[in-house]
């Protein structure tokens, strides 16, 4: 495969060198107001209408027959710019676009051009902020769950189940650094502060070859660069969180920064639980924060450097204290988790046709379960005992990618990623009796290297072909896994604004998530594939049909896919990894699982106008099979949902008010129900017999959220926004879980068993205020 690709590339390159006598124009496109790079802007020559798009660093390279042509540079929501006499200028051109007519902004720019691969989607952050949300906390991952093929688990949780995959099968990148745990507050919110983000791109179908390492999807989040023109910021006050963003130039037009922080109000709850000098009591403390920062410096027209940092942490502690006669005892159980990422990138325009970027990445995820006991007695030595179990992963890596714009019809992306992982699976430190005081950290190192090449070839003006190959090598514990991952994309534009797309992709996943529960608390461990647990693998075939209706501004997409997975893992019933030794996890998990998923996804979106939004529908089936579960028969994955429907709409009422609403309907997820019950002498009531996993269904889930945003101007002429809304507007009791309840008579004898559904979120109003300066 590699030989084939190299041959094709060399052939095309030689043809280009032999016959090409055209003028090459390159440049970087930015937002005039703040200097942000514009990704996906279109650059065309006015006569032939041949065009290219800017890459993720705003760079483009275009061949034009001569300098008599005019270049048109455009981006949705911005006034187009026409450039003449470009041959007289120094390359790369510095092009700045000005925002215009906000009403024309897109809501979802899925399939914006025929270049976008099948199953990809972007949500602009300015529209995301208008969407109604739980307690007014806008969340980028929850917004994605309103798009086809994407769902959350139970209500409130932020983990995404994409095309039948599980949350650990999503590669989530923040400025290219992987983020291992993406949830705050038991999964109710993601760690991504919308105030710090510029864009979010989702790939769930044909993945570009530059991405790899997960089976289900890639979610690529890009932080804002910071305004390099003027200082500004915003402060937000919400029910759960408060946030502050500051940005501005360090050197005007050359260097800028952005710092954005968010802190939870819940931390104040500890003030309500003071300890007393005598008595007994409980304390519950929870708090989280996250901090994003980015600095970028444009060294000259061709070189730029970026430094991105993220740190976020959650701390939850439950304690019991007792005090009497001067003696105080306290036990505390805590769960702390968080991520730190750092990315240092350097981009360089080597020539009119060659763009490169180099990145050094750091990512650390740590989760900790703590047990502490303290006994303070007068006139005696205090007793302090601890037992802390830590699980985490630290990545240090580098990436090199070259974008080579061979011709207007052909460009290549190729590069290499190298990552050194260091896993710490359930390392325990304790000074309890019988435990070593300072246990040596048992770290498990692994090294991953990936080579890739993506080719974008326009076989004809309407037919684009995107073959790619990724070759991954993973070394752990004296064992090396290596796997080729072929990728293929095809985009064919038909008359009358019809487009057909297709894609095939193969992915390998070398890390596995062991989680003690499924609801987003942070005591999870990521572990590498081993000799016993082979890397997971998936292959997916997808095909789609698209239609654009320019006049009303509608876009329709219909995609179908089929996916197979193998070497999946699951847990035996009742598995608890809390005290597990680092070396035993791969004996305990159930191995050699396979999965099959198929589905159809329909989406209709209106991207322009005062009334915009989208509706989406997914029909899907996701199943698993393990030799040791359900007698090796196929069974539904827990969050297999046959039907999913979502609609979101925004409506601008004049200049001040914007209304928004979203509705979601989902088939209930699979649940394990008892097949019988029994009573014995010792059972103290009925005991339930569970036999087959996921043998039942929860009731359907549906909910309507509505919101309104009012634009304000303060007396000091500052812009501000007031956000109001209702979560679960018609107060639907959506079941969060089922509980088998035993009714008892006056003699306390069990008489009847009923099924209860427990719901958490009734109709919830929210209010938020953001001041911009």
């Amino acid at each position: 495969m590699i030989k084939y690709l190299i041959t094709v590339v060399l052939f095309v390159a030689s043809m280009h060198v032999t016959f090409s006598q055209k003028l090459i124009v390159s440049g970087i496109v930015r937002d005039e107001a703040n200097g942000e790079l514009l990704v996906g802007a279109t650059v065309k020559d006015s006569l032939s209408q041949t065009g290219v798009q800017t890459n993720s660093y705003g760079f483009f390279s275009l061949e034009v027959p001569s300098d008599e042509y005019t270049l048109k540079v455009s981006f949705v929501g911005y006034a187009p710019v026409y450039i003449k006499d470009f041959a007289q200028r120094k390359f790369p051109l510095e092009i700045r676009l000005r925002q215009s007519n906000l009403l024309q902004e897109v809501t979802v720019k899925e399939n914006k051009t025929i270049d976008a691969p099948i199953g990809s989607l972007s949500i602009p952050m300015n529209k995301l902020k208008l969407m109604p949300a739980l307690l007014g906390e806008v969340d980028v991952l929850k917004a994605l769950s309103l798009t086809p093929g994407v769902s959350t688990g139970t209500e409130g949780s932020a983990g995404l189940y994409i095309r039948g995959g599980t949350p650990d099968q999503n590669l989530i990148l923040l400025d290219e650094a992987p983020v291992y745990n993406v949830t705050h507050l038991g999964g109710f919110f993601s760690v991504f502060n919308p105030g710090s983000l510029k864009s979010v791109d989702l790939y769930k179908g044909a993945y570009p070859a530059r991405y790899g390492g997960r089976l289900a999807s890639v979610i690529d989040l890009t932080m804002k660069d910071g305004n390099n023109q003027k200082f500004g910021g915003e402060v937000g006050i919400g029910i759960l969180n408060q946030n502050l963003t500051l940005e501005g130039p360090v050197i005007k037009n050359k260097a800028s920064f952005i710092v954005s922080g968010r802190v939870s109000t819940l931390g104040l709850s500890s003030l309500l639980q003071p300890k007393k000098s005598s008595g007994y009591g409980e304390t519950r403390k929870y708090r989280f924060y996250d901090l994003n920062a980015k600095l970028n410096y444009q060294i000259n027209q061709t070189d730029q450097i970026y430094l991105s940092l993220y740190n976020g942490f959650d701390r939850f502690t439950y304690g019991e204290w007792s005090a009497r006669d001067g003696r105080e005892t306290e036990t505390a159980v805590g769960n702390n988790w968080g991520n730190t990422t750092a990315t240092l990138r350097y981009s360089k325009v080597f020539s009119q046709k060659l763009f490169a970027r180099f990145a050094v990445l750091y990512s650390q995820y740590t989760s900790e379960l703590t047990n502490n006991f303290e006994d303070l007695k007068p006139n005696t030595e205090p007793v302090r005992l601890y037992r802390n179990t830590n699980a985490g992963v630290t990545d240090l890596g580098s990436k090199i990618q070259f974008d080579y714009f061979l011709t207007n019809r052909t460009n290549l992306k190729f590069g290499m990623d190298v990552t050194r992982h260091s896993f710490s699976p359930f390392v325990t430190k304790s000074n309890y009796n019988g435990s070593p005081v300072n246990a040596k950290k048992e770290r498990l190192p692994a090294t991953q290297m990936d080579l890739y090449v993506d080719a974008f070839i326009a076989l004809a003006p309407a037919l684009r072909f995107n073959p790619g190959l990724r070759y991954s090598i993973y070394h752990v514990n004296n064992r090396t896994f290596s796997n080729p991952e072929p990728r293929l994309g095809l985009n064919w534009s038909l008359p009358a604004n019809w487009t057909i797309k297709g894609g095939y992709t193969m992915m390998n996943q070398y890390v596995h998530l062991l989680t003690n529960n499924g609801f987003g608390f942070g005591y999870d461990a990521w572990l590498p594939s081993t000799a016993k647990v082979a890397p997971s693998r998936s292959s997916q075939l997808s095909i789609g049909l698209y239609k654009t209706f320019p006049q009303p501004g509608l876009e329709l997409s219909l995609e179908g896919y089929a996916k197979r997975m193998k070497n999946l893992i699951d847990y035996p019933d009742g598995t608890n990894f809390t005290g597990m030794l680092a070396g035993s996890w791969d004996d305990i998990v159930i191995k050699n699982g396979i999965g099959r998923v198929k589905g159809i996804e329909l989406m209709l979106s209106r991207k322009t106008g005062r009334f915009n939004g989208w509706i989406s529908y997914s029909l899907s089936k996701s199943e698993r099979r393990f030799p040791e579960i359900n007698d090796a028969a196929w069974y539904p994955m827990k969050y297999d949902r046959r039907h999913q429907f979502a609609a979101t709409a925004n409506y601008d009422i004049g200049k001040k008010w914007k209304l928004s609403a979203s509705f979601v309907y989902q088939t209930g997820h699979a649940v394990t129900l008892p097949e019988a019950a029994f009573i014995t002498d010792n059972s103290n009531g009925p005991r339930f017999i569970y036999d087959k996993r996921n043998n039942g269904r929860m009731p359907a889930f549906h909910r309507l959220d509505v919101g309104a945003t009012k634009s304000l101007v303060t007396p000091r002429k500052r812009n501000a926004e007031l956000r109001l809304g209702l979560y679960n507007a018609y107060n639907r009791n959506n079941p969060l879980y089922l509980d088998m309840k035993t009714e008892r008579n006056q003699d306390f004898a069990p008489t009847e068993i009923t099924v209860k559904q427990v719901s958490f979120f009734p109709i919830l109003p929210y209010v938020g205020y953001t001041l911009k300066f």
Partner: protein
Amino acid sequence: MKFIYFLLLLFLTGCKETDLNLDIPYSGDKLVLWGKLKAGSPIRIQVTKTFNPVGVIPKDVSVADAKVQLLMNGENYIELSPSAGEKGVYVSDHVIQPGATYIVKASAPTFPPAESAPVLVPLDLPDVSVVRTRNVPGEINHQSPQDLLSLYFTGQQSEVEKHFTLTFLAYYEKDTISANPYGSTDNIPAKEEDCHTWASEKISSYYSEVAGITFDRLASVFLMKSKCLPDPKTPIKFYIEIGKGPSYNPQWAHKVTMRIEVVTKEAFDYAKIEYDQPEGVDHLVLPPQRALTNIKNGYGLIFASNEKTIEIP
């Protein structure tokens, strides 16, 4: 501050429990066998039947017309007789032999015949010495009078994994109740989760004049694996409650006993599943566990024990 109270109130009122009419297919009636084969004691096997997991619980789940047999060492059949006093209970005067292997078979009209897996009655008991430190401040709820028990497992550890249970009872003038043991912080929790669990066992029943109901009196049972024991010089430690009643005038236990059992692995595993089985909000994060049974074509558990009870000096 008011805002936080409001927020908490919002969540509390939001948590709503409603009846759900869910169709749960019932797998059909099967026999449930329950019995502890206690070395040196006569045989007692309870036979009940399964029922629909939703709806009215049958008033009588006992199976009174079963034929129950015990197969010892694969040879001798012992036919059990229905107990005169307890419906659905089958007994025999045959005394359970340590080191023998038993299989329980049961059949009844309209039920598929059920059969237990072979159960080996434990042969040996561990050597344990107990040091009692009286009236120490406890680590939990230290307002009540407590003693600290240090247990030394002095014998050689067998390479074969064994499972032990410990039950502490406090004897008062009028009644005998559980001594409510809990593990010392620097000791039992230090062992891996897989090493131990807790269960409860009915020890008697009592009539509450206030409620006008007869309640079961339960005792806490601590279960552990032999591989988790420390070296013979290192004790495992429990606090027990040796007083009850108001703190200004407590009633003291005049005797405390410890029952130590060696039980079969199934007893430990069953207790662990029961202890870890999700209840209430646990369902949000933990799936229910498959019921442990060693009964083919039925449910329940037949396990064996060898035990002794010592009075703690």
